[in-house]
Every structure is written in structure tokens, then in C-alpha cells.
């Protein structure tokens, strides 16, 4: 089954799962539209009574208020329902994006900035929300209003009805003109905003470099460039936004003026317009009421416009090519007879032009300890990424216990691999969660025994809330993070331990701690490690050379 999703299918899904909400929303909108028609009709009767010298009964006056109150209440109902519906859409969309995240190939995360992806989740989804709440649904409501009022106007005065039919499309043409101009400005703005958003975390990440190299002004200048970009785009769309509504109101006045003049003329024209003074007052109110939703239609179009850019990006995100998901079959179980790791004539490169690995073959048997060596950039880490199934080889096979590495289901990985990365990736959560990675299968007991194994248990207990202390960069030293990384790797008792240049960046003493911890962690496991330095800590392990063997020793 192909999981091809677009924004459209996601939305259909959301609407389908909340039928009751959708139906109720529409019902409330229709009722609100209908009740809004009544007050001017009552007004007409009031004025007609007055012109003929009759009085107003208190019940007529009260019914005027009654309808206004009812239509006001229904309008609140409408607002609530629109919000509820919009939030359902937002929720559904974010869930869909999250699922998509799961299906994206690892390469996507290295070629796209985290801030920009997050901006798709946060800002672009918010625009889609406003596309619904302040856009499409409100537009539907306002469209209903316009049509219903036009019908009443036709009924009251054929001439004015035709006049309105003439003006409405003209207004729409104008609106579309504005629409196009604003769309491009809005798009420019969104692009700039995403740059602005990305610059802040980047600054925080690089703050020491900025201070040491005295680049505060440089970074500020970059930021100012981004906000100025956004400023110019916003200014452009503000200009159109500012003049649109005044033009509409002026047109409304023109319609009223023409109508009144025509109604005042004699003969056929008056016949055609055929209005009494009471009707004139009511119709002025109606004309006002038509232009109000027409004006908001303009605004709603603006909201939809600004959402288009966001929608485009969400659609692009959802359409990103997905990785081939590992088949979720239990049938294929790795055989114990097969070697635990096998590279079979593997060729791989991140792009078509440059091969990182060529014709690489090796076998690692269960329980063996192997070290990969090679020049910087020779592709040692790439070997690990292929092993972990993050990438597929272009040619040849990467087999784990006889199974293709990228066909291993995600949920089995943790029991197969413990991957100690070069640097520790801090996740948002407590210290215990740094080790368990929120895996429910890794209970507190396993977390603690992993921490004990790497010798961190006591330091963690010394923290204010022990294992439940929220983890932060400041809470641990560089070396302790390495230890935490090892604890994370071994917490679920994996069969294979992958060590990526584990003791880089450490001084000898800490290195000793880490190496001790590793020795304990390696017991009974297959261990694959990466090292730049041939002669260290190899202790008679098998060495596999990656790339040309010109390593200076």
C-alpha cells in the first residue's frame, strides 16, 4: 500500500471523522444567516407605519430586539463551532505531519534545517488553521449571507437587485486583483519569517563563537536583513490591505446614491425600482449588510492567500519521497546461523556523483569486536548509517543476521543495536528519559542498571530530583554525556554495540572512565567501533580498513 498523502486527503479524513461537528457547524451558520435577515424587514414596517402616520406597537419594537439577540447568539454559536472545527483540523494535520516525519528518509534530516521543519509544524499549520476558521468556513457563512440578502433585495426591488448583480462581480474582479498582488507579498514574508525563526536557535547554538570572534554585529546584521526582508513584504501587503476596504465602502455608497436617485425619478424607472420610504430604509440597511460580508470576504480571501504559501509548503512536505518502510512481518526472523553483520560488495554515496564506499565487503561474527579505521571522511560513519538501516546501499547488500539492514522494523532496532553517537543528543525530558528515550519497554530498573553499568548512578542520585531531574546541558560534563550516551545504548540490552569515535573530545582521565564503562558494556556483545587512531585501545581486535590504506601511523 502506498502512503501518498496530500493536505486534501488529510483534511477529508478529519472531516469524515467529525461528521457531527461539521453538520452542527453548518446548521448553526444557516440559522444565523436566516435570522439576520429579519431586523431590516421589521424596520421597513416601522418606517412605513410612520410615513402613513400610524404608531408603533411595543411588541413590534420588542420583536426587533428579539431577532437581533437571536442572530447575535447564533453568531456566537457560529464562532465557537468554527473554532472547534478549526482546531480539529489543526490537530489532525499535525498528527499527519508527525506520521510523515516517521516515514521520511534519514537523509531528509541532514539536508533540511530543524528550525525550518519545525516552522512547517508550527507556523504553516497555524496558517492552515486560519485558512479554515478565518477563511473557508467564514467565507461559506458570508457567502450565504450575501446570497440571502441579494434574494431579499430582489424581492423588494427588482431594479436594485439588478444593480447589485452588476456591482457584485465587479467587486469580485477587483478583489481578485488585490488577491494576486498580495499573494506574492505574503509568500515573500513567510520565507523571510522562516529565516528569522531559524536564526534565533542558531545564534544560541553558536553564541561562544559569536562572542569570541566578535561577530555580534555581523549576526545582528544578518538578523536585521531577515527582518527587513519580512518588513518590506509586509509593508507591500499592508498597502493593498489598507485601501481595499475603503474602496468597497465607497462602492456601497455609490449603490445607495444611484438607488435613491433612481427611486426619486418619475415614470418607468421608479416603477422598476419600486420602493417606498420604508423599503428604502430597509434596503439601505440590507445594502450595508451585503457589503459587510463582501468586505469580510475580501479579508477571508487575504487569510486564504496567506495560507496558500503555508499550504504549499505542507503539501510539499507531505509529498517528500518516503523511505521504504521496513515490512512489519514477524515471519522473517534473522537466523542465528548467519553472521551477525555482513557487507556484501556494497557501493554507496550520498549523491550520484561521489561514491563514499565502493565494493566494500566484510563479515563480523557474533561476539566479535571490530574496529574500523580510515582517513577522515573515508566513510566510517557511513558504514554505521548503512548498518542502522538509515540508508540503503546503491549496490550490494548489508545484512544483519542474514536480513537486509533497512528491512528491520524500527521497533526491533533497539534490541539489536546500541548506537553511541559522537556527540550526545539531549532530548527534552528527565535524566531517566535520556536513558530510556521514553521507551515504555525500558523500565526504571533497566534505566538504573544501565546507569550503574556506566558508573553514573551516584552522580544522578546527587541531582535535586535524582532520575527525575529535568536534564539540561549544564547538568553534566562532556564526559558524563558520553557515559549517558552509553547508558542509553545499552539500556535495552542490544546485541550489537556501535561506537562512533567514542573517546574523541575527552581528556585522558575521563577517557579512562568511558573506556571502563565501555568494557563493561561490551561484555557478551558484538562490538563495532570507529577510530581514527590505529594503535589505541585496539588490543588485538580485528581492524577493518575503510577507504584507501594511506593512514599515517
Amino acid at each position, binding site marked *: 500500500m502506498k502512503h501518498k498523502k496530500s493536505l486534501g486527503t488529510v483534511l477529508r479524513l478529519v472531516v469524515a471523522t467529525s461528521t457531527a461537528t461539521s453538520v452542527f457547524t453548518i446548521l448553526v451558520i444557516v440559522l444565523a444567516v436566516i435570522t439576520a435577515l429579519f431586523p431590516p424587514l421589521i424596520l421597513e414596517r416601522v418606517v412605513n407605519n410612520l410615513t402613513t402616520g400610524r404608531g408603533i406597537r411595543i411588541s413590534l419594537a420588542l420583536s426587533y430586539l428579539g431577532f437581533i439577540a437571536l442572530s447575535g447568539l447564533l453568531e456566537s454559536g457560529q464562532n465557537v463551532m468554527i473554532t472547534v472545527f478549526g*482546531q480539529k483540523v489543526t490537530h489532525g494535520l499535525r498528527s499527519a505531519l508527525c506520521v510523515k516525519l516517521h516515514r521520511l528518509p534519514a537523509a531528509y534530516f541532514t539536508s533540511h534545517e530543524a528550525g525550518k521543519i519545525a516552522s512547517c509544524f508550527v507556523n504553516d499549520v497555524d496558517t492552515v488553521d486560519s485558512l479554515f476558521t478565518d477563511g473557508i468556513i467564514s467565507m461559506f457563512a458570508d457567502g450565504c449571507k450575501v446570497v440571502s440578502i441579494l434574494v431579499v433585495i430582489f424581492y423588494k426591488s427588482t431594479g436594485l437587485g439588478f444593480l447589485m448583480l452588476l456591482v457584485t462581480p465587479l467587486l469580485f474582479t477587483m478583489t481578485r486583483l488585490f488577491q494576486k498582488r498580495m499573494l506574492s507579498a505574503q509568500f515573500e514574508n513567510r520565507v523571510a519569517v522562516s529565516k528569522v*525563526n531559524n536564526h534565533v536557535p542558531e545564534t544560541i547554538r553558536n*553564541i561562544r563563537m559569536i562572542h569570541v570572534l566578535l561577530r555580534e554585529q555581523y549576526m545582528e546584521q544578518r538578523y536585521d536583513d531577515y527582518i527587513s526582508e519580512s518588513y518590506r513584504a509586509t509593508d507591500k501587503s499592508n498597502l493593498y490591505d489598507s485601501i481595499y476596504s*475603503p474602496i468597497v465602502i465607497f462602492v456601497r455608497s455609490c449603490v445607495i*446614491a444611484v438607488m435613491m436617485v433612481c427611486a426619486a425619478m418619475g415614470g418607468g424607472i421608479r416603477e422598476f425600482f419600486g420602493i417606498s420610504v420604508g423599503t428604502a430604509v430597509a434596503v439601505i440597511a440590507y445594502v450595508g449588510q451585503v457589503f459587510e460580508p463582501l468586505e469580510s470576504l475580501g479579508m477571508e480571501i487575504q487569510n486564504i492567500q496567506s495560507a496558500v504559501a503555508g499550504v504549499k509548503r505542507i503539501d510539499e512536505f507531505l509529498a517528500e519521497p518516503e523511505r521504504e518502510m521496513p515490512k512489519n512481518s514477524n515471519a522473517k526472523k534473522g537466523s542465528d546461523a548467519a553472521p551477525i553483520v555482513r557487507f556484501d560488495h556494497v557501493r554507496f554515496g550520498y549523491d550520484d556523483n561521489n561514491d563514499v564506499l565502493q565494493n566494500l565487503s566484510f563479515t563480523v561474527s557474533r561476539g566479535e569486536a571490530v574496529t574500523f579505521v580510515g582517513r577522515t571522511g573515508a566513510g566510517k560513519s557511513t558504514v554505521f548509517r548503512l548498518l542502522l538501516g538509515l540508508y540503503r546501499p546503491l549496490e550490494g547488500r548489508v545484512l544483519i543476521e542474514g536480513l537486509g539492514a533497512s528491512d528491520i522494523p524500527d521497533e526491533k532496532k533497539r534490541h539489536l543495536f546500541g548506537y553511541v553517537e559522537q556527540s550526545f543528543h539531549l532530548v527534552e525530558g528527565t535524566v531517566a528519559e535520556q536513558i530510556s528515550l*521514553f521507551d515504555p519497554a525500558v523500565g526504571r530498573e533497566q534505566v538504573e542498571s544501565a546507569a550503574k553499568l556506566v558508573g553514573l548512578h551516584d552522580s544522578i542520585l546527587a541531582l535535586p530530583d535524582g532520575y527525575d531531574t529535568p536534564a539540561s546541558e549544564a547538568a553534566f560534563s562532556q564526559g558524563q554525556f558520553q557515559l549517558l550516551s552509553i547508558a542509553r545504548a545499552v539500556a535495552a540490552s542490544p546485541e550489537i554495540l556501535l561506537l562512533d569515535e567514542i573517546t574523541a573530545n575527552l581528556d*585522558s582521565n575521563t577517557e579512562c572512565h568511558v573506556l571502563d564503562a565501555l568494557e563493561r558494556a561490551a561484555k557478551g556483545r558484538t562490538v563495532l567501533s570507529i577510530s581514527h587512531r590505529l594503535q589505541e585501545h585496539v588490543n588485538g581486535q580485528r581492524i577493518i580498513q575503510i577507504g584507501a590504506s594511506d593512514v599515517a601511523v
Partner: protein
Amino acid sequence: MSHQRIHKVPQPDHIWSYFRLETRPLVLVTVSGILYNVGMVAGPYFEGQLAQCLFDIMKGYKTVSAMVSLAALYLSVILFVQAMRALKRFGVRRFANDTSRNMRHMLYNSLVHMSREKLEKENLGSVMTKAVADVDTCVEGMRKFTTEVFDTGVVLVAYTVMLFSYDWRLALLSCAFTPFAYLIAGHLKGRVAQTNAAYKKSAGRLNGATMDRVSNAVTYRVYGCEQNRDAAYEVRLSDYEKRAVAANLWENTMQPLYNIISMCGAVLILYLGAQNVLGTGWKSWDIAAFTTFLSCFTKMALKSSHAAKLFNAVQKAQVSWARIKPLMKEYIGLDSISLPNVKPIELILSNVSVGWTDGETVLKDISFSAHPGQIIGVTGPVACGKSTLGKGFIGEVPYCGSIRVAGRELRELSHCERSQLISYMGHEPELISDTLAENIRLGEPGEIEPFLRAVCLDEEVRQMPQGADTPVGSGGVRLSGGQQARVALARTLYNSRSVLVLDDPFSALDQGTEQTILENLRVLAKDKIVILFSHRLYQFPTFDRVLFLYGGRSIFSTHEKLMQKNPDYAKLYLEQINGGGGHET
């Protein structure tokens, strides 16, 4: 208008500073806003007159030409009023746009000058929400406030005057309901703020979760944890949905209710106003007066219900502003620099202890001096010490004793002066998302080729499809660890000052590359003092001096002498040279 300039805001933690800066657009807004809003009454007035005129024509009192001239007058007045409106709308938006830019500019200025230590205490996700979302909300509130001062304040006054001039008793009676609407609005203000704050908090949590999910996606995948992270994300989403609905409910649904309360007055107008027209009321009215009065009142009731919206917008802005305010600091520019032009620059440490005052001092009694052209290797088995000394040079860790550079005491130098003398490179490559070349230049034009060659990166760069113009990605993700380290080193060399402090720059490199780079460094930095911290000792024999730190003490000597006299150093060195841990010296 000078809309290309971004202002440095004096007293940036006072909201009024931002209004003050925008005097020009605000004056424009004031003039056009008053004209427009006073002109607002023209609509109902003329529409009443038009109805009256139609009545008169029908009765035969007037001719069509009266209607034509009235309609023409009506149109020209509306045109003027709407032109004012367009001007006001644009003015307000320009004000908001300017303010948003100024606020972000100031916010960023204080961010970029924040110390690393302070920043680490701040949660990344929430700083982001603070900086971006809060400025937007705050400016939106300021814009609405400015708009509503005119669109509600001035227009209400205009309408009230109009109503009172027609029939003051009826005006008084019919407007009696409006204060109730205000009373309720004021009462519910707190509730609105409360739900809104809860919503904002939930949004912050959701943003943090999003950032975590996205930036650690590969880690979660490798550990097969993606599915349960998705489930946790779902919990955040549900919470956000719930709070967003609650906040919107309070904010959006109050307005029609206020309107209903205010419109109670309309019953009185219809009933008593009709009596005026029929000649049995307090005043004698024509049809025009009746319709104008009613239409004015209706518009006023609607406007006063907007007043509640104003409260909400201001309320929301206050919540956001309260969070931005502590981040707003006086603009920090470059410090003045007063450096004596001492050449050659010397570095002298005497009796230096480095460490935090509240903790135990990590290193004690370090003394040495260095001259340009020298490479000083610093090493030692001590658990934590080397990096601390390195950070002492850039003011991240305090020191006692004396460190003199170019004849000046280090701690007396401003941040700016210190950075003019000392360049530092830490463990993190700290790359920006731009091209490889820009990461080295950082805005300082110049030739980067020699520096790429110096760090043995020239060949690899040539092989990249876009060469030095290749974007490195966020944090340098598109480069390998070794490439990142070398780009960082090239950047440090390109921007190097008289003293170069390199904290373990070669840890991600193989030994051959390390040796080549060191040879290049010697040539490139022949007029500089290089202090190189490392736990790898292969290259130490080639260094001019070695500072050996052990057990809180230090020895400053040459490699040869240390090998002879210090068994700890000799053991450390030989262990590494012979490989493996357990060899005898």
C-alpha cells in the same frame, strides 16, 4: 518615509518607547483617524437625509434635482472619509510593522550579547516562542489599541454627540444599557487573560515538543522510539487543542453578548422615537431624524461591543509583553577600544588560579610567558582542568593572579578588547547555516583558499559540487564531523588575533592530517602565540614549550626536559606513543 532604518530603542523595556519612536506614522494616524471617525457619522446622517428626501419627493414637496445634488454631496463626503480611512489603516499597519521590527531588533541585540552560561539556562523552545510569537502578539495588541483609540474612542464620542443633539432624553435612556456591557467586559477580562495564558503555555510546550521531535528524529529512529514519541506528541496536541478552544471561546463569543445588551436601547428608540415622529414625544422628528438616530445607535452599540475586543487585545499584548520585557535590554553596541599598540605582543601568566569562586579552584599557581611564533602545548591527565584554563582566557571562567596580554591585565579588558587580542576555538564547531566560505569569512571579505589549504580541506572543497559556496546546512550537518572541525579551525585562523587558544582542535582528525595542519599552522601563525590544548601528545615534541597540568599543579618546560624530569609526563607520552594502555615505560 525613512522606513529602511531600524531604530535602536532607548529604554526598550518601556512599552511607550516604541510608541514614541513612531511619532510620525502616529501623527498621521491621529489626524486621519479623527477625520475618518468624525466623518463616520456622515454615513447615517446622509442616509437619513436621503430617505427624507425620497419621502418629500413622493409627497411632491421636492424635485428629483434635489435628490441628485444630495446624492452627489453624500458621495463626495464618503469619498473623503474613506480616503482618510485608507490613510489611517496604512498608518497603523506601518506603525505595527515598524514596531515589530524594532522590537525584534532589540530582542536580538540582547540575545546575541547574552552570556553562554545564561543562555544555557534558558529553554531553547521557549526562547523561540518568546522572540517570535510574543512580539507578534504584542505588536498586534499595540496595533489594535492604536486603532481602537480612534475607531472606538473618537467614533463613540462623535456618535454620542450626534444622538444627544437629536434628543438628549432618548439618547440618555437608550445608552443606559451600554455601561452594563462594559461592566461585564471588565469583569470577564481576567478570565480571558487566564485562558489565554494557559493556551500560550500549552503552545510553548507544543513548540518545545515539536523542536525535540524534529531535531532528534534520527536519534529516535536509530533507537526505534519514533512511534512512542509520536504518541507523546499526540498528548501535547490534544492539550493544545483543548486550551485553544477554551481561549477562543472566551475571546470570541463575548462580543455578540455585549451587542445584545447594548441593543436593548433600540426598543426604546423604536417606541419613543416613533412618538417623536408622530408628534407625541419629547421632540418633533422627521423620518430623517428617526432613521439617522436608529442607525447611529446601532453602529454605536456595535462599536461598544468592539471595546471588549480592545480589552482582550490589550490583555493579550500585556501577557506577551510581560514575557518579552525582561529580555529587553538597553542596546549594546561595540565597546570603545583603547589598546596600546604593543609589538610584539607578549603573554605573561603569573600565579594564576582558575576556577569558580564558589566551587574549588581547579588549577592553581600557573606561571609562564610566551612570545609570538611559539606554540605552547597544554596537556595533563587531570579530570577537569585544561578546558577550564582555556575558558579562563575568554572570560567564561574567572581567574586569580595575573594574566597579562600586550601589557594589559586580562580581566580589566572589555569583552571587545579581549576579543581583539585572543581568539579561541572550543570543542563545538559552531557553524552557521550558510555557505562554507561564509562560515570562514563571517562577513569579513578576503581570500580563504590559503586557510582551506592550511587545514587540509582544499582538496575536499574542490570536489564539492558548488565548491566553497556549498551550503553547510544547519549546524554544518551536511559536512562530516572532521570537515566541521576543520572549517571551524579555518574560521578561527582566518579571524585570528595575536593569541590563539585552541582547545583540542584535532580530536576528530586522523594523525596524518593533524601533523600536516600543525606544520601549516606554524607558518601561518608565525607572528602569533598559539596555545594548544590537547590530550594527544604525538606532536608535543615539536612544540616550543609544554605546560603540563597534573594534580592541581603545573610545570612549564620543554618536551625534552619534561620527558627527563617528570615521570608522569613521560608515562603519559609513552603510553600514547606505544599504543594500548598497559605498556611499561
